[in-house]
């Protein structure tokens, strides 16, 4: 704690911390308040005398109703859910096996493969999306969820592998050796002794992978074109803005409802998520 007089505590601790919290959370408050604000209040210029931006006296669910009935929002929600879950499962599967191999087994090229996966971990999506779009077209995967289910693992697997490698290294080797002495095969020792212990690590990697897939934008923007195939981020930005007209009520309702699944998952696994964030930067 900050030592000294109480004014010091206020100046050096409470005031800055409150400022951070307000600054970081205000946009979400703004999302909520815009969603429930009726249109005639929404489009009142900022310097109008009766402009009261921080609350509304006539809350309405009109925007949410419009969003759910007049647009394809529920379809996008379902698409995103399917894609994010499938990509997460594929990445967890690959990352778990690869992480085990790279941290536990001795084989030629182990070092090179580890470095290779670390490098792909650092490759941003924006570097490859143009040739990848061409490849997706050639594979006839364009405009289908498979385009994303198969490409999202490219940025999720390196992360999952990295996280699982760190986790496996913390499990003592003796456990496996005991199982092997008792007659278990290498395969069974891995499957029934090591993987169950690694469940917290798997959960962390899974949560992080899920939020990353939900967040992904550029691949979804480039690979999908029909309105009913889109994911939430792409659908909200491309279909709810018609020409130059922004329907802010619906847009914010879309942003809010599109964030809820991620926030929901996150709220249950905060500790795992924090572990994965800090684990992702551990060398």
């Amino acid at each position, binding site marked *: 704690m900050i030592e000294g007089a109480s004014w010091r505590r206020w100046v050096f601790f409470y005031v*800055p911390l409150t400022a951070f919290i307000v600054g970081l959370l205000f946009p979400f408050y703004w999302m909520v308040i815009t969603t429930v604000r009726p249109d005639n209040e929404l489009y009142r210029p900022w310097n109008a005398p009766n402009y009261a931006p921080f609350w509304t006296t006539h809350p309405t669910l009109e925007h949410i109703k419009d969003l759910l009935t007049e647009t394809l929002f529920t379809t996008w929600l379902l698409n995103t859910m399917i894609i994010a879950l499938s990509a997460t499962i594929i990445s967890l599967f*690959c990352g778990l*096996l*690869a992480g085990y191999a790279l941290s536990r087994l001795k084989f030629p090229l182990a070092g090179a493969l580890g470095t290779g996966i670390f490098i792909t971990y650092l490759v941003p999506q924006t570097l490859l999306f143009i040739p990848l779009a061409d490849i997706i077209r050639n594979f006839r995967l364009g405009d289908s969820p498979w385009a994303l289910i198969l490409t999202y693992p490219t940025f999720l697997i390196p992360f999952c592998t990295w996280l699982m490698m760190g986790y496996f290294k913390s499990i003592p080797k003796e456990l496996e050796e005991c199982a092997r002495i008792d007659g278990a095969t290498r395969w069974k020792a891995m499957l029934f002794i090591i993987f169950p212990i690694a469940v917290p690590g798997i959960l962390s990697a899974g949560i992080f992978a899920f939020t990353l897939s939900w967040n992904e934008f550029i691949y979804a923007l*480039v690979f999908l074109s029909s309105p009913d195939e889109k994911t939430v981020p792409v659908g909200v930005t491309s279909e709810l803005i018609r020409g130059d007209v922004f329907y802010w009520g619906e847009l914010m309702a879309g942003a809010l409802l599109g*964030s809820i699944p991620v926030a929901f998952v996150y709220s249950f696994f905060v500790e795992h998520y924090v572990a994965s964030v800090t684990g992702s930067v551990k060398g």
Partner: protein
Amino acid sequence: MTFTTVAAPRSYARTPRRGPVTRLLEDERWLAIVLLLPTVVLLGLFIAYPFIKGIMLSVTDTKVGVPGHFVGLQNFVNVWHDGIFRVAVWNTCIYTAIATIFKLALGLWLAVLLNNNFKGKAFTRAFILLPFIIPTVLSTLAWKWMFDPTFSVINWGLYRLGIIDHRINWLGDPDLALISVIIVNVWRGVPFFAISLLAGLQTISPELHEAAAIDGARAWQRFRHVTWPLLLPVTLVVMLFSVIQTFADFQLVYVLTGGGPANATQLFSTYAYQIGIGTGLLSQGATISLAVFPVLLVVVIVQLFYIRKAETH
């Protein structure tokens, strides 16, 4: 020796029957191949192959639906002489540098604040990560609405506080647009820095601080000479990730300004998108992405060098 006689007979464990596959998997090398196969196939197909394909595209004049011919390094020459590309690279560097400095400074400050014990700490930490986990595009839309030229709540606040007397056109003014975009990037990135650095801070033993305090070091001196050097390795790794992500940022600018006004916020990624996908000039677009690759590579190598150096100290 007497105790050799009490050694357990080996017959208690019936050797299980093992098929040829199981026996093969007992060999570490074969097991490694099987375990790594799915990863190598997926990464090879959708990372290594696109990378090679990108290089092949960049030396032809391929357009969407039109197979290209070999043109050598013509695309790179074009890009080099392209004024917008130069602006985009310059903007990308400025955007990355300024945003990273602010994210580091604010993130470190927040981490130090959170490292105190106070009521509701876990709760605060969970809420503070929200900007990082909520899909960027969706939270950026909220910012776009907050920056709206006519209905901006930020303008309202500043006007009420008496700081401004006319509206500020956050995203429409070429001088301000890049700053506005940087603000949103910093807002989104601070939680990641704060949480990672907080984890680093928690590994520093409080005894070191106490020892320094007994020796008469003031709070700032303790931070400068105890905390900072111990935190440096984590800081450098966090910065490495942040710099790469910021350098390659796309969604934020795409939603807020689309690269405008007059290319004031054009980044290399948004420009590559405009050329490669917007106008269908695949080769030109791939060249733009590839041309920035060396810049990114140099930045990463320099950072890895410093990380290595900090870790050996």
